[in-house]
């Protein structure tokens, strides 16, 4: 570097060191949600390149599935996308039912829809609340957590647990809905609406919020499609791909709901898409309650896969044997492989399962929507500044359990 006292015509002739700086945004970082390590190559504050290193929550889901029975996958599946556990449960049930060709009663289907959409509500609330908090708006986070606790109360009443319910079963659900489910659910919808409205009032005219989300983390539709993005990340770029509409499952073709689509692919679009999807989820739940039959079983009566009624188990030898074999050996799907996909909280949640005809799964692969979304985050971050990493990363809703499995 040249001494200062020398005359220069302009400063550009000074030789300044210009190597990019490497900065580690380590795994234990609040903005990284604790499980992603980003090694940033910085030019001042601008990100030139980022090496995203996941795997800090790799808990061996796929290998663990191979060591139990098919029904023992449910607790592991719950903890994949742990903010919307019912969606994972339902997704896995649908996959095995597709392979086994089990038909479940309508009551079960609508029940699954309702619980799944409640889980989606909880997921989108958490994501937006956390994004707001990380941008400094702590109050909406508290409102959203208050509302989310009510949703969890509902789920606790139904399934027994606030969060990781393990409520799905192959061929049905673990228990029928409680008598006051409908009233309790519909009672909190106005509260959810109010919390969202107040959050929007606080945030959407706030200069800081808008500056930090609009135009930041942009993604083009072509890039998103080629990268394998699905869910809100893809819809915010303008592609309206929602599994519930393109490949309807579980009576979604009978519900009247819209799919919110953005156009810029930036953080703001993702934030707004999530809130809109939340409102659509509430709409779906109301319709599902109207359509759901009030009586009837929530499990299929296929004895090969579903546990028999306890009365039969205790009083008939066939029931005892069936119960024993289903629990000890596991239910036995026919050999084959199947890929079943549903709309998870983050996008297309797919389960590719391979069965060798025994009670133990041979291979369970979950297609994690946020795995490919996270890979796309790199493109979104290049060119932005360090401070933009926080809202961008928050808006893709990377859930460690699903991403790293």
């Amino acid at each position, binding site marked *: 570097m040249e001494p200062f006292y020398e005359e220069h015509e302009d400063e550009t002739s000074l030789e300044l060191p210009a190597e990019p700086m490497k900065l580690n945004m*380590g*795994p*234990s*970082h*609040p903005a990284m*949600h*604790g*499980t992603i390590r980003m090694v940033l190559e910085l030019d001042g504050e601008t990100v030139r390149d980022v090496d995203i290193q996941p*795997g*800090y*929550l*790799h*808990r*061996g889901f796929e*290998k*663990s599935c191979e060591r139990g029975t098919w029904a023992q996958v449910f*607790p*592991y599946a719950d*903890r994949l996308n*742990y*903010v919307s556990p019912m969606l994972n449960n339902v997704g896995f049930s649908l996959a095995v039912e597709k392979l086994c060709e089990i038909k479940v009663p309508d009551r079960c289907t609508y029940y699954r829809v309702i619980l799944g959409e409640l889980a989606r509500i909880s997921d989108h609330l*958490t994501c937006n609340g*956390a994004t707001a908090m990380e941008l400094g708006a702590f109050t909406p986070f*508290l*409102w959203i*957590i*208050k509302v*989310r*606790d009510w949703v*969890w109360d509902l789920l606790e009443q139904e399934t027994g647990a*606030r*969060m*990781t319910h393990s409520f799905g079963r192959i061929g049905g659900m673990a228990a029928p809905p409680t008598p006051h489910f409908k009233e309790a659910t519909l009672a909190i919808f106005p509260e959810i609406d109010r919390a969202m409205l107040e959050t929007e009032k606080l945030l959407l005219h706030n200069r800081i919020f808008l500056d930090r989300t609009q135009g930041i983390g942009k993604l083009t539709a072509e890039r998103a499609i080629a990268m394998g993005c699905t869910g809100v990340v893809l819809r915010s770029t303008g592609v309206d791909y929602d599994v519930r509409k393109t490949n309807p499952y579980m009576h979604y073709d009978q519900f009247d709901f819209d799919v919110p689509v953005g156009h810029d692919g930036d953080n703001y679009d993702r934030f707004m898409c999530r809130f809109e999807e939340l409102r659509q989820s509430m709409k779906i739940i109301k319709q599902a309650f109207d359509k759901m039959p009030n009586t009837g079983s929530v499990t299929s009566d296929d004895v090969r896969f579903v546990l028999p009624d306890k009365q039969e188990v205790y009083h008939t030898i066939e029931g005892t044997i069936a119960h024993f074999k289903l629990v000890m050996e596991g239910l036995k799907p026919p050999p084959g492989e199947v890929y079943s996909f549903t709309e998870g909280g983050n996008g297309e949640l797919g389960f590719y399962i391979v069965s060798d005809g025994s009670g133990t799964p041979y291979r369970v692969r979950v297609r994690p929507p946020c795995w490919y979304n996270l890979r796309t985050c790199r493109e979104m971050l290049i060119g932005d500044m360090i401070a933009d990493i926080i809202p961008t990363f928050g808006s893709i809703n990377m859930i*460690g*359990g699903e991403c790293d499995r």
Partner: protein
Amino acid sequence: MGAVNLADVMDGSFFTTRFEDLIAWSRRWSLFQYPFVTACCGMEFMSLNGPRYDGLARFGAEAPRFSPRQADLLWVVGTIVQKQGPALKRIYEQMMEPKYVVAFGTCASCGGFYDNYATIPGIDKVIPVDVYVPGCPPRPEAVLDGLMLLQEKIQTGDRGPRIVPPKELPRLTQLKKKTSTVLLALEEQKRLEAEKERASALLAAQHHDDDELVER
């Protein structure tokens, strides 16, 4: 505190003990937390900080310090996998004494049901733990129990590991005290019958008095 010994006051240890108590009191009510949040338990951690449970603010433990140099309570929330182990150990080593560690959740306490190649079977294999809060995920009330347990430990200066015990429903405790529900019901029945007899005796006495009045 008990009776004060003149000898203690004379050599000053009375004041140092009180002073130590004061320091311990101030430490327990002003914990600076380092939330090392990884997995599902993080959602319950969010709820814990939320308006319903208002967990940590009530106990003075709300201020999160995302630098280990400034924190004294390490909340290890969620599964710690082998890849994350060096990070956890380093964070713990960078904290300054006195430091406390709470293992939030089963995965942090013992690895949970992720007993496989990827997970550390409990963070106590890597760092010493003060309080274990079991649960998958633990209810926020259980975590508050853990925090209060930690506070007691800080007050008494105890550094051994403690586990949050499961809470019983009061009815269950009551039932356990009696030998069986049948006996409970029988006792209840006897009590009711005794009351009925007393009431009818009182009523009969009253009628008798009335009759006597009428007769007169």
